[in-house]
């Protein structure tokens, strides 16, 4: 098939984002019913986790993590000890960024006879998330992408290339992902558009906000309630002084209960001079972050650090969280965040220590 220039799956007919979200929510609730009816059916538990992962990623429903923890507890209570159930618990631990625990479960699952391809896939994800064995991970990602030509394979490769600061190659991998996509579900397409927005808006050393804006907009066009894309686009609008558009992006997703939305909206409202509401939003953001950190410290340590280093206005808490994140997954990005926060917190000793680690990586 010959494609016209600049055409990719983002303009292919795909299921309307509103329908897809309704269907995800409908299927998610149904899968929970099926699981709760019989928690020993580990294949249903796996479906629940898949639905919750999508809900966390694309709907921005942070309570998905609380729900999967409930599922893990139910599996333990029901004494479901199959290799598949262990793999599910590994997935849940990975969702919450508890990577050491994930590795332990993966070892158990492997010993228990879980499909080696499933174990390897998750282990690769954990290595990538932790910045471990990156050369091996890169070889594996390239090989898998070349063999399968699947969207998710190119996305994983693109994400790794971005971590390795090869931004042009990452861009190519993401666009390959869009070209490879033949289906109609909008979530994968929206996800790639978002990654491209992140690539050029946040990861690249010299951000291209115009490109990032275009990609975030495409992500939102595909999936109108894509919370993360709305938050990131609102940040760009806000920094451009386009406060009304930023507010319009954030208002519809406040009800999700994600403190990052409260924080960004508080900043926009403050810039608009709406101080009373801004303060209320900031209080909600503060209590929301603390609650999330209490329940899922490792999953939100980097977000919390960013909040406290910014409008949350608590450098020592920011540094504490950034170090927890960097200890958990010592990626270049995590170390850089911790280093920057240490520098702005005037903690020279920590900044020097972190800088040396960043350089080594």
């Amino acid at each position: 098939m010959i494609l016209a220039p600049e055409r990719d799956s983002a303009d292919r007919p795909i299921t309307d984002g509103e329908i897809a979200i309704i269907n995800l929510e409908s299927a998610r609730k149904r899968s929970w019913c099926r699981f709760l009816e019989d928690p020993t059916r580990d294949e249903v538990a796996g479906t629940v986790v898949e639905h919750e992962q999508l809900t966390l990623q694309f709907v921005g429903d942070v309570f998905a993590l609380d729900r999967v923890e409930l599922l893990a507890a139910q599996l333990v209570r029901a004494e479901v000890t199959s290799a598949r159930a262990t793999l599910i618990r590994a997935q849940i631990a990975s969702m919450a960024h508890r990577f050491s625990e994930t590795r332990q479960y993966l070892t158990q699952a492997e010993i228990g006879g879980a499909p080696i391809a499933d174990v390897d896939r998750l282990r690769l994800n954990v290595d990538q998330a932790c910045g471990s064995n990156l050369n091996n991970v890169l070889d594996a990602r390239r090989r898998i992408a070349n063999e399968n030509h699947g969207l998710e394979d190119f996305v994983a490769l693109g994400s790794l290339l971005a971590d390795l600061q090869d931004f042009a190659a990452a861009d190519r991998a993401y666009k390959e992902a869009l070209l490879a996509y033949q289906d109609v579900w909008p979530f994968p397409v929206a996800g790639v558009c978002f990654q491209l927005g992140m690539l050029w808006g946040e990861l690249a050393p010299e951000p291209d906000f115009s490109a990032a804006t275009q990609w975030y907009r495409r992500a939102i066009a595909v999936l109108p309630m894509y919370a993360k894309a709305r938050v990131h686009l609102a940040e760009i609008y806000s920094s451009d002084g386009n406060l009304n558009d930023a507010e319009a992006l954030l208002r519809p997703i406040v009800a999700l209960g994600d403190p990052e939305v409260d924080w960004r909206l508080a900043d926009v409202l403050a810039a608009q001079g709406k101080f009373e509401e801004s303060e209320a939003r900031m209080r909600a953001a503060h209590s929301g972050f603390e609650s999330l950190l209490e329940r899922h410290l490792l999953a939100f340590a980097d977000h919390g650090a960013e909040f406290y280093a910014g409008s949350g206005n608590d450098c020592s808490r920011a540094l504490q969280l950034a170090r927890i994140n960097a200890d958990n997954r010592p990626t270049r990005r995590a170390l850089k965040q911790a280093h920057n926060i240490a520098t702005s917190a005037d903690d020279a000793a920590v900044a020097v220590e972190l800088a040396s680690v960043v350089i080594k990586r």
Partner: protein
Amino acid sequence: MSDHIDGPRQIGDPSADLTDLFAFTSPENPSRTVLAANVFPTCGRDAMFSNAITHSIVVRRAKVSGMGDATKFETSDPEVRFSVRFDALERNGANQRPIQRGTCTFPDGQTLPLVVNDERGASTPDGTFRVFAGLRSDPFILAWIVSAMKPFQNLLLHDNVLCIVIEFDTRRVLDPDRGSLFGVIAETVPLTRLGEFVGSQPPRIDWVGRPEQTNVRLNCPFLGDVDDLRDLWNQQTPFAIADELRPLFLQRLRDSLAAYDMHDGRQDWTPAGLAANANMFLDDYMLFDVTKPITDGSHLEIEKSTLNGKAYETGGGRTVDADVIDVLLTWIVNRDREPLRGGTTKATKPGTKTFPYFATPNLELQQVAESIDLDATADKVWELIGQFGGDWHPLIANIKLIGNGVGQLRVIETVDGKQIIERLDAVDNSTRSYRYMNISGIPASDYTGTLEVKPNGAGSTVEWRAQYLGNGQGDLIVRTIVSTLFKTGLGSLKSRFGAGK
């Protein structure tokens, strides 16, 4: 299971996943034929059709061109195609349920607009065609753990699917005088994008002919570590499997059918019979004869009689209530020597005798409600319990509020160390009520609670209600947890305010 979740690609978009295909004579009118296709397994209560897919049911005239071990069915042009597409959602108001419309295109090019979930369906002005599309109870009976060949409860109990039903005047549409045997398939294909080059039709997502081609026959659990051919199969063109791939699929069918035959330790199929059966299943379309009776027991009778070297006697096809997996397993395991029965022979709900023939969806909510009369004014009681983060319940050890107003969360630690997280959805101080949703902690899906204080003479009545989606046998556990929570809380109010007089 029939064709539910039959390959990695279908799981990528569940609303494109065809679960089942049906062909039967209308129970309302024997001069009419009903074709139906279901998509989106375990879709829940609110699912909608994808607006990026063409859903088609395609019929071709068929004939028997060989019998016994030389069994062969052939189909011929022209195809009779029914295609249904759906639109994006419409909303009449912010809080209204969305409406979805669609259009069915008939073999003669005529189109018929329809509204999803309209029980009456839509009819063409001359009454030739009638179409329904919407949520229904899944009629499939999966009462087996097939990988262990163990009878089990229906694994699809209480599930819903999205259903497309097309009923038509048999004589006008199929002209049975030219031959009354037909083959039918259903398929889901992405829409072609605007400006796409001619010939660049997007790959088909899923198609289904006879039940269980993919999940049972091509993905036999007894074959060990073999390649999963289901995606490759789903991308084949129905009625025209690629010549170069036919040997691959045929070998898999032979291996699979041989494994099923020997499952009970007894060989019921001769090698020639097994090969003929595999050849027959390779041409995957469901056969039905519109001049013969199609009953709950006639599924696969056309194929089986022909393989047995006899003229078929029924219309084959598949009714809503046909227990197709028992029919299939009996045939492939012991060649109808003795019936194999799953854990049940009944679906969640049986089909109906009236249009659209598929039972209403499973939408039942479980409810728990408790109340107590108190010897205190409604305002006084509300003052205590009307705060979402109020610390008044004896089973709560600690309660923490996050955020303000509607949307705020309460994180509750119970005295037995459990955590419950709930979100405030609405509050009305004038009626002294609030509504909340459980985020986690109660093992129920879609759990909503309401607490309300009403004046009652000189005193008041507190009502505490909850509703959630049923979990079958888990309902009793949830009911016990919630009921205990409510009764203990309300009982503590009686101690505090005194019983109503």
